[in-house]
């Protein structure tokens, strides 16, 4: 179902529609929160908090194309608040990323799936080594697929900065991955 009719049902109080909505976006919300916090439990709590916030502000959720960027924006804001609150606390890795990103396609053999998960874990770790702005641009543009204007508005930087930073961030990530042995 498209987001707009689903949202209309959710707004009318249909609990099944709300469940479908949660199932539809929970992977994206949790995935983004995990990239920010690097802790599965914190990411889970934040994702839950985000959905409660959405439920309390259903009237504000934009229809159609604006829905996902809006959800990602409030997820990012929740993550930034969370990180500010615990700024002194260093990030911990409480669960290996390959368990989290183990969304294997059914036509993959177990070996292929394992290799894919290892590669994803490498990318995830390399992302944590980028500068904050570069990491956010990769997260929002390359991973979440937001447009340049949306990212510029979200990060409060000019579109040109996002554009130029995007290539630099990808290159920095690739350099870290090449140094870690990927592509060699």
């Amino acid at each position: 179902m498209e987001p707009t009719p689903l949202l209309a049902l959710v707004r009318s109080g249909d609990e099944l529609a709300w469940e479908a909505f949660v199932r539809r976006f929970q992977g994206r919300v949790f995935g983004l929160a995990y990239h920010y916090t690097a802790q599965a439990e914190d990411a889970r709590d934040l994702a839950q908090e985000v959905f409660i916030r959405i439920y309390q502000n259903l009237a504000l959720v934009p229809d159609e194309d604006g829905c996902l960027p809006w959800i990602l924006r409030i997820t990012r804001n929740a993550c930034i608040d969370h990180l500010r609150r615990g700024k002194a606390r260093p990030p911990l890795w409480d669960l290996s990323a390959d368990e989290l990103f183990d969304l294997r396609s059914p036509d993959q053999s177990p070996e292929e799936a394992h290799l894919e998960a290892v590669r994803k874990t490498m990318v995830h770790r390399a992302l944590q080594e980028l500068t904050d702005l570069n990491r956010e641009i990769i997260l929002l543009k390359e991973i979440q697929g937001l447009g340049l204007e949306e990212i510029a508005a979200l990060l409060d930087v000019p579109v040109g900065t996002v554009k130029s930073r995007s290539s630099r961030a990808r290159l920095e990530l690739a350099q870290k991955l090449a140094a870690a042995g990927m592509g060699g």
Partner: protein
Amino acid sequence: MDTRPRDPEALTQAILARTSGAPCRRVEALACDFVDGGLDGAQADLLRGHLAHCAACSALVRALAESGRLLPALAEADPGPWFTQRVLRSTSRRPAARGTDARAAWRRLLHRPRIALEAAYLGAVAGMMGLYAPVPWHSLVPPAQVWTAPLQGPAQRLTRVVVRTERHTAAALRRTFRPLRETAPAGLWRRAVAKVRGWLKRIEAALKQANP
């Protein structure tokens, strides 16, 4: 002795080293467009020619292409089997928000991260004013029996509310006050605590007297 490079690749490197330098920086500038297919044919061919001879640039471009393939797949992660149930449980008893629910607004205010700090700050300011006021302020206030008499009911209700609230906020306040207690001059903290205890005893005695 002849030191000229005999291997063609070594010769190329030697010439580049003495002329333009290695073109790897140029590759870095073009790599993203190359991977995205945004380079024109001639430039792409030139870049491919370099990649065939430069292991470092070749690894970089492969890593760039591989990360480009893997990054979109990181958009979603599995939050675990119980996540949906947790969300549904925590939203099932909440009405869809209209933004005017005073109780929800009050709850949100209490859940703000700095509420304990703000409460502690106000408490500390009030305490300091009480300790250092040039006038003994308690002598300006009529005896407790006089002003508590018409307030027996509300006072009792207020006491109950305070006790209930205290259970929730005591831990947070203790955490907030701990650094203050540890850094404050020894006598100051003791005097403040004694003063607060004195006030509480006086209020308790007045309440008992008013409502034996």
